[in-house]
């Protein structure tokens, strides 16, 4: 399958214009920044705030916007006509994902600046966030593909939000059961661990979370691309 940057860019520009004029969706851009101001006023005494901020923003911004972009095209049947143009599956997905990626990265950067967050290892955190954004874009794509309308898409994000933001708070809610140790392998907990790395860390402390997150990302990206092709063939 060929990838043409020219076509992907055309889709990027088109989606950017649509996104910026659709206030119902573009308002989700301020979610991370809003949370950042909220937590900053609570002070640095709040533990786990930065982890919660990143996880909730990844769902409410990255996942939701991607799901809505795909579902809106499905609702208007424009995705079907896009398939009849020379643009390939990857062109369309890359064009859309690039937009969501840029938006998420920008919003998260501003949010962490507002929070005054300083990571122990900047590069490890950047790598983990980049991988996480791609993971949540894939999850958003899957949500969008399973919904027929914009309304369904915004609702379908809720289960995804529960699955992906709940693990860090699960021990607080249900107590410390051994079975909850499985949750340590979820990407959200791994991201939290990286974000709250103590200053005197070892290389192994960085490597393990990064590997686990990238495994999730690769699996979900493949699932979303395969699902995209299959769902659109059925239409």
């Amino acid at each position, binding site marked *: 399958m060929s990838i043409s940057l020219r076509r992907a860019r*055309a889709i990027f520009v088109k989606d950017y214009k*649509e996104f910026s004029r659709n206030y119902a969706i573009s308002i989700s851009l301020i979610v991370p920044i809003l949370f950042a101001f909220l937590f900053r006023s609570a002070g640095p005494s709040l533990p786990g705030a930065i982890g919660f901020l990143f996880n909730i923003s990844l769902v409410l911004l990255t996942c939701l916007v991607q799901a809505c972009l795909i579902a809106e095209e499905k609702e*208007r049947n424009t995705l079907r*006509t896009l398939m*009849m*143009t*020379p643009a390939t599956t990857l062109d369309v997905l890359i064009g859309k994902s690039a937009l969501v990626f840029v938006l998420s990265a920008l919003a998260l950067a501003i949010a962490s600046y507002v929070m005054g967050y300083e990571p122990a290892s900047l590069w490890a955190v950047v790598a983990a966030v980049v991988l996480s954004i791609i993971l949540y874009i894939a999850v958003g794509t899957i949500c969008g593909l399973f919904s027929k309308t914009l309304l369904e898409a915004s609702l379908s994000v809720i289960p995804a939000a529960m699955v992906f933001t709940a693990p860090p708070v699960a021990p607080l809610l249900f107590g410390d059961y051994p079975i909850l140790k499985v949750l340590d392998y979820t990407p959200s907990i791994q991201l939290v661990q990286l974000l709250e790395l103590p200053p005197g860390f070892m290389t192994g402390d960085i490597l393990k979370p990064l590997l686990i997150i990238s495994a999730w990302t690769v699996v979900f990206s493949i699932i979303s691309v395969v699902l995209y092709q299959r769902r659109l063939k059925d239409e």
Partner: protein
Amino acid sequence: MQFQPIYENGELFLPKFELHMSFNQSIGMITDLRRKQLLLNQLADHNQYYVLRAGQNEYMRLTVEELIAFLIRVTERNERVASLMDYFDLREVRKNKIKDLTSSKRMYVTLLRVFFAHQPALVLEEPYFYLEEQDRRQFKRILDDLSKEKQILILTSNLEDAMISCDAIYRLNELGLHPLDIRDSDEDKQEVQKQDEANITLKKISTKRKDKIILFSPPEIDFIESLNGSILVHVGGENYDCALTLTELEQRLLNSGFFRCHRSYIVNLQKVREIITWTKNSYSLRLNTGKEIVVPLSRSKLQELKALLHI
């Protein structure tokens, strides 16, 4: 292109047929909603057919100019936006968002997607349905230009829509694909009118129903029967009273392909599908009017009928 037969509830719903498309000749096909959907489902090959369905929508928040620019870039064509805007005659609305256009203009802009198709065949479902007169003319012009390089098939349930831009028109029903020869039949009609203007009023059969007088042309009539002294004219499953006697009607309809098949029946031979032999001395005629209609045939009339039909 070839279409596969489709059965529904054990009956043939869409017969197998083949359609030969060529350049410079756009084809219109008149059929119902269900058959349109079934046909479009068979045209799923994205390398062969560009299918534009009736439910197609557009990116509402882009302006017309942005949309055309997007379509040019995503299809990797080399045209310039400005020259295309002139060609499409969209200069005046180029800064308007698609959602702010009138519904006819919005449909017209949506239809322009076929212009950017790279497939050799374009299939459009009901393209003219939502268009106003001026947009219809514009779109017809674009389709005419496109037909020089592409094969165009228009699916519609409306004959008038098909006549706007199609060179050949077919009607598709459960019996198959039938070409409609529109131009010729128009000319024929005019000639007929000139020839026997006086006879035309004579050929109409006047009937009565609830104080209304209804006139039927002979080809519309399925058969006529005499029942309890009154004459009933059967048309499309309904019956209407007629004041004339069967003998008078027989005389009048003799030249229109009607036949007195029984003491109390006159049948339109154009509609007879089958001669049923019950026993050696008992016969019936089955009509192909959609509903199951059987008309008795006298033994004495059988020979006459056979002679008439050269059997």
